[in-house]
């Protein structure tokens, strides 16, 4: 990748308007970066041989790693959903730019998410395991006997994953930019070549090894990341005069910025601690993001690839370690303030801080960690979205006779398509506010929550009502998000909007979700009154009956029978 542009002679001014920062090419830094990247690539390809399956053509193998991951691997794999470019680039960037409400909420979100996982996931695991389900859309389809509902959940999952994968691309782009690799060349093609190359490698090994690749690479990634984070949270505060001074610097910066904004007639945008009018925004961002994470296809995929539900429960007690590190990584945004980093492009904050405060060799390691930290989740996300396409769109609607091997082949191709879709988001949206990419995905994916999660406890909602609620939620959420402008984008500039009737802003996803549920309830009452028939329940009894003796293989050979429901229904 270093050869793409060759060494740039001397420091070059960054291309971002209003952000005079220096990027310069360093051989040591780039060399270490490339070495780490190559190592990970080899591990990725080698993963295809890891725990090789008896029937590698089955989608369970490519798409769920054979459902055999124990507590240890699962911890890395599920934790990988937390440690992404979101954590390294987007959250610290948001902290740097505007403080608590748009940044620190991520800590509350990644804390609140574990109890929700504890409640929801073991149950979803049990049903999926016994009925041979692979995706959240499988579940919605089987539970409510509606292929249309499965299709809606699948399409939402695929579309919502794209901006999240795009966020990973943006993270890598930020690293390349600060490393001075490619990004300072005038030619657009050359500028994006390192990124395209990195993603091509990712695509290739995901295609080859499936879920095993990110699971194995996750080890390397997390070891690197833990090392880098440990250094950052101990060494940087020592250099910068302690956490007290770091917080003071941030508080001062936001006070000055808000005073300026008010003087110029704008609304103050920064918050060191949420003000009375921002409490709802902070709370809804945290809760909405947490609920969204539970139904994101990649989270479900990660959870379903574990070998027991006890693994999931135990892991919820250990996974908060990731949340804790996310918190300290978030604070690197404030450290950047204390270190005097000045940029208008918040996604560059952490790479610039690393470049400024550390020797080149360590910067190389850190940048490698960030880039690999973007690759692993991007792989998991695209595999999850690909599973959705193969299982819930291709098989039921395009080719009902598709064999397991054919589904796997289609899923592999679809994983490539998802990455292309992600590129479209990178090109089409404001990537400075990169956190918003994830929030936007959350707006969409949260609308599948009633069909997937509520269904785990009750079949009371009517299938058409769920579909109607989904449509209303998606419509409202997309419209509201479209209306939000940011300084650099006219549309989709943010994910906070005024909640009707409350006079406060809140996370669009949650407002849309409440609307969604209201429609589900009303429409169900109407449909029941009209005696519209329900769909059959292919998962009947599986969440409680038996003790889990049925293996996925068995479930495959013997499709679940739609027996009279043994579950207490309304």
């Amino acid at each position, binding site marked *: 990748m270093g050869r793409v542009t060759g060494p740039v002679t001397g420091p070059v001014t960054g291309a971002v308007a209003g952000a005079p920062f220096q990027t310069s090419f360093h051989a040591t830094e780039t060399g270490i970066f490339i070495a780490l990247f190559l190592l990970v690539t080899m591990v990725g390809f080698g993963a295809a041989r890891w725990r090789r399956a008896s029937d590698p053509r089955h989608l369970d193998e490519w798409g769920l790693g054979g459902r055999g991951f124990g507590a240890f691997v699962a911890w890395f794999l599920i934790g990988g959903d937390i440690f992404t470019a979101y954590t390294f680039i987007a959250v610290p960037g948001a902290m740097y730019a505007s403080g608590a409400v748009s940044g620190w909420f991520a800590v509350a979100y990644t804390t609140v998410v574990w109890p929700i996982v504890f409640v929801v996931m073991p149950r979803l695991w049990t049903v999926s395991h016994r009925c041979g389900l692979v995706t959240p859309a499988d579940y919605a389809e089987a539970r409510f006997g509606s292929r249309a509902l499965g299709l809606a959940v699948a399409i939402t999952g695929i579309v919502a994953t794209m901006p999240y994968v795009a966020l990973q691309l943006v993270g890598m782009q930020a690293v390349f930019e600060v490393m001075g690799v490619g990004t300072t060349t005038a030619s657009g093609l050359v500028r994006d070549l390192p990124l395209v190359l990195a993603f091509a490698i990712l695509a290739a090994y995901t295609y080859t090894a499936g879920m095993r690749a990110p699971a194995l690479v996750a080890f390397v990634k997390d070891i690197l990341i833990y090392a880098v984070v440990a250094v950052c949270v101990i060494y940087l505060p020592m250099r910068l005069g302690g956490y007290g001074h770091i917080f003071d610097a941030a508080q001062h910066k936001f006070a000055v910025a808000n005073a300026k904004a008010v003087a110029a007639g704008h609304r103050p945008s920064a918050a060191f*601690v949420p003000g009375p009018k921002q409490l709802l925004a902070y709370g809804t961002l945290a809760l909405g993001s947490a609920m969204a994470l539970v139904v994101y296809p990649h989270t479900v995929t990660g959870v379903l690839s574990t070998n*027991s539900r006890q693994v999931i429960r135990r892991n919820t007690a250990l996974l908060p370690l990731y949340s804790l590190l996310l918190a300290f990584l978030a604070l690197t945004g404030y450290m950047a303030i204390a270190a005097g980093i000045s940029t208008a492009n918040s996604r560059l904050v952490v790479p610039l801080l690393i470049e400024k405060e550390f020797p080149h060799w360590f910067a190389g390691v850190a940048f490698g960690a960030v880039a690999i930290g973007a690759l692993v989740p991007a792989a998991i996300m695209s595999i999850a979205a690909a599973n959705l396409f193969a299982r819930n769109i291709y098989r039921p609607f395009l080719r009902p006779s598709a064999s397991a091997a054919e589904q796997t082949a289609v899923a592999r191709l679809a994983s490539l398509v998802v990455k292309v879709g992600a590129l479209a988001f990178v090109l089409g949206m404001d990537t400075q506010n990169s956190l918003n990419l994830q929030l936007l995905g959350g707006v969409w994916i949260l609308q599948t929550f009633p069909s997937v999660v509520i269904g785990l406890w009750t079949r009371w909602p009517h299938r058409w009502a769920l579909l109607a609620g989904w449509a209303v939620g998606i419509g409202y959420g997309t419209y509201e998000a479209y209306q939000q402008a940011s300084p650099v984008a006219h549309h989709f500039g943010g994910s906070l909007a005024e909640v009707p009737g409350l006079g406060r802003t809140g996370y669009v996803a949650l407002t849309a979700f409440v609307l969604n549920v209201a429609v589900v309830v009303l429409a169900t009452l109407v449909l029941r009154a009209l005696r519209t028939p329900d769909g059959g329940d292919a998962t009947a009894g599986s969440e409680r009956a038996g003790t889990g003796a049925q293996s996925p293989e068995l479930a495959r050979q013997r499709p679940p029978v739609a027996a009279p429901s043994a579950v207490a229904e309304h």
Partner: protein
Amino acid sequence: MTEPPSSPVGPPAGPPAGPPDRVADGGPAAPRSRRPAVTATVAVLLTVQVVALLAVGTYAKTGPRLGGFPFFYWYTLLWLLIGAACMALCAALTRDRPRDPGDAR
């Protein structure tokens, strides 16, 4: 802002909320008599941390500081640790019976 299945943000001491009940249940063969107490405990342990963090107004202030961290920041981290401890307890309480073949390692 809240809905039943994901965030049991109800009065914790009341009748056990739906979600933890079923999750805690290892299967129909599990002795029912033991369950209500376990269920209630799990519901409380899981609910408390969610409520504490979502009640943003109770901790959105700068002081008192702890180790340089303003109150708002260290309080969040404190609940992160309490939450992890609670979930470790919940995992132990809801452990599936060892002979359960589907959940054996």
